């Protein structure tokens, strides 16, 4: 008796469960959704994203918070920066004055903008050139591949810091030259990584299918190979940005990079070091803080992305 009553109830429940399972299966997660979930659960990376977003906002809109600009020299402060030029909220000079009596807050805003721009633009150029070069070499293969990659080997073993400095001295120090000089070498690693990935992709069925229906080579590279490289490229590009920033800061620290009135983190840190002896530590502290935090953020985000996207770990 109880059995007969329970039977239809259980059937209904089973059907409901089956339906539920079906719906769950329909909502299957794509690779990207999977990766996103993994990235979002990485605390260090998420904190870094927020911090980095703040720094980018600071570099873009920071000057609107201040009533001063980065070029006006306050002659009253000059010569007495240590006493009168301290950072203070009241007089609106949040980061104080630099050694030449300019408002340091706006100098840091400007420096952040240039350093970030060099890092991001440099990385974008490196990614574009490196991806296309590597994908082409890997996809065409054979003799073209070995010539192209031998060329990369040769360029890679040139100690580029010397050539970069020589270039900057001979062609004049300017931001454009820094872009050119850094861009000349930054794509090499990228092209190697991309080539390796391309080799493993190019024998897959969808590429064979594309070849079979007569899609031209360059179109296969752009439409079928490159999108499948995206994961690796994104991870590497994130790690490339801090490297670019470091290189630019290195050059600017030596005084061979961006020139006054422009500035960058490296140049500001260098100024801070020079005036360290006079006890004006904020000259060093503020740019150093932004520099270190940014590099940290990019490393953590890159690490998080690698964990999220790298197929090796799955």
């Amino acid at each position, binding site marked *: 008796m109880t059995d007969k009553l329970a039977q239809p109830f259980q059937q209904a429940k089973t059907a409901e469960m089956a339906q539920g399972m079906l719906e769950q299966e329909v909502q299957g997660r794509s690779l990207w959704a999977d990766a996103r979930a993994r990235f979002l659960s990485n605390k260090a990376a998420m904190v870094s994203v927020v911090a980095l977003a703040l720094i980018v906002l600071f570099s873009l809109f920071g000057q609107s918070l201040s009533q001063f600009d980065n070029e006006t020299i306050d002659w009253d402060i000059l010569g007495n920066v240590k006493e009168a030029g301290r950072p203070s909220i009241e007089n609106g000079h949040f980061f104080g004055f630099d050694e030449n009596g300019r408002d340091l807050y706006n100098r840091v805003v400007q420096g952040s903008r240039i350093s970030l721009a060099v890092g991001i633009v440099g990385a974008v150029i490196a990614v574009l050139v490196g991806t296309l070069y590597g994908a082409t070499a890997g996809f065409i293969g054979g003799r073209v591949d070995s010539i192209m990659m031998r060329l990369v080997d040769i360029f890679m073993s040139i100690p580029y810091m010397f050539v970069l400095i020589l270039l900057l001295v001979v062609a004049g120090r300017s931001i454009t030259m820094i872009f050119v000089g850094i861009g000349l070498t930054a794509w090499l690693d990228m092209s190697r990584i991309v080539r390796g990935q391309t080799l493993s992709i190019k024998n897959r069925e969808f590429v064979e299918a594309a070849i079979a229906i007569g899609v031209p080579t360059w179109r296969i590279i752009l439409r079928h190979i490159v999108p499948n490289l995206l994961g690796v490229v994104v991870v590497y590009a994130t790690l490339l940005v801090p490297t670019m920033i470091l290189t630019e*800061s290195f050059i600017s620290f030596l005084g061979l990079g961006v020139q006054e009135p422009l500035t960058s983190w490296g140049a500001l840190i260098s100024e801070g070091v020079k005036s360290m002896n006079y006890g004006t530590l904020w000259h060093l502290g503020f740019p150093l803080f932004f520099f270190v935090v940014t590099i940290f953020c990019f490393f953590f985000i890159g690490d998080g992305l690698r964990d999220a996207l790298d197929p090796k770990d799955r």
Partner: protein
Amino acid sequence: MLNFIIRRVAVAIPTLIILLIASFWLMQTAPGGPFTSERPLPPQVLANIEAKYGLDQPILKQLWDYVIGIITQFDFGPSYKYKDRSVNDIIAQGFPVTLTYGIISFVIAIVVGGILGMSAAIRQNSMLDYFAVGVTIGAQVLPNFVMAPILILIFTLWLGWLPGGGWNGGQWQYLVMPVIALSTSYMASIARLTRSSMLEVLRSNFIRTARAKGLPDRTIIWRHALKPSLLPVISYLGPAFVGMVTGSFIIDSIFGTGGIGYFYVNSAFNRDYAVMMGLTILLGSMTIMFNMVVDILYAWIDPKIRL
């Protein structure tokens, strides 16, 4: 093996040639001749000076003479700014300094980094491991031009223990800060490398066999795991050497140690193209050679690489 050596040398030679031609070409395209100054020289005098340095010859002849000078007499050319200071003089003066703090930093980076990395791997997920990983991440974002001023701030300005710069014949007080500043980031990289390779080695079959045999942990680590886990460090020697030379730009300009980097940066500011070119070619070819030797050494030790 011979095949590998030939292939490796086949990359090194064009690299050397490109480096040579690129530096030479850059110097030729530099704005203004080497003797252009605010007060123009009489053309007769200029012609005499240019003839003295061989600058009236065709460019290819100049390049040829320069290369022959390097090969036969190890002469990397004169300075056009200071009559008494050729590239060779600069090398004789600056190189011992750079080499001194460079080699010490290098040794410290390998020893400390190696020990840190290995002990972190042996006690994976312990406090020591987290400490080591934290240190390596921290050191990565503190390049030498950030480390150096922080060190000066702490040890010279606050504590007053160490002199803030100078060389003084290489007394130890003058060496401490340059060595720490230069070695930190390499130490971190080496620690990371050895940690990950040690972890991999410890999970491999031959270690499991050694454990199954009942060998004590100490024997397993020192006799079996140590050597293979140090292998990747060898491939890092090349970049570390480059880092030592380019790092000397920073070290010399912050600490005033007067190494090779000081002269390089100085000649960049003075637009002393001849010295820059000479130093670029010399240090560049040393780098290329060193990388080649390291690669060959690595392939000799680890046959898998030769493929």
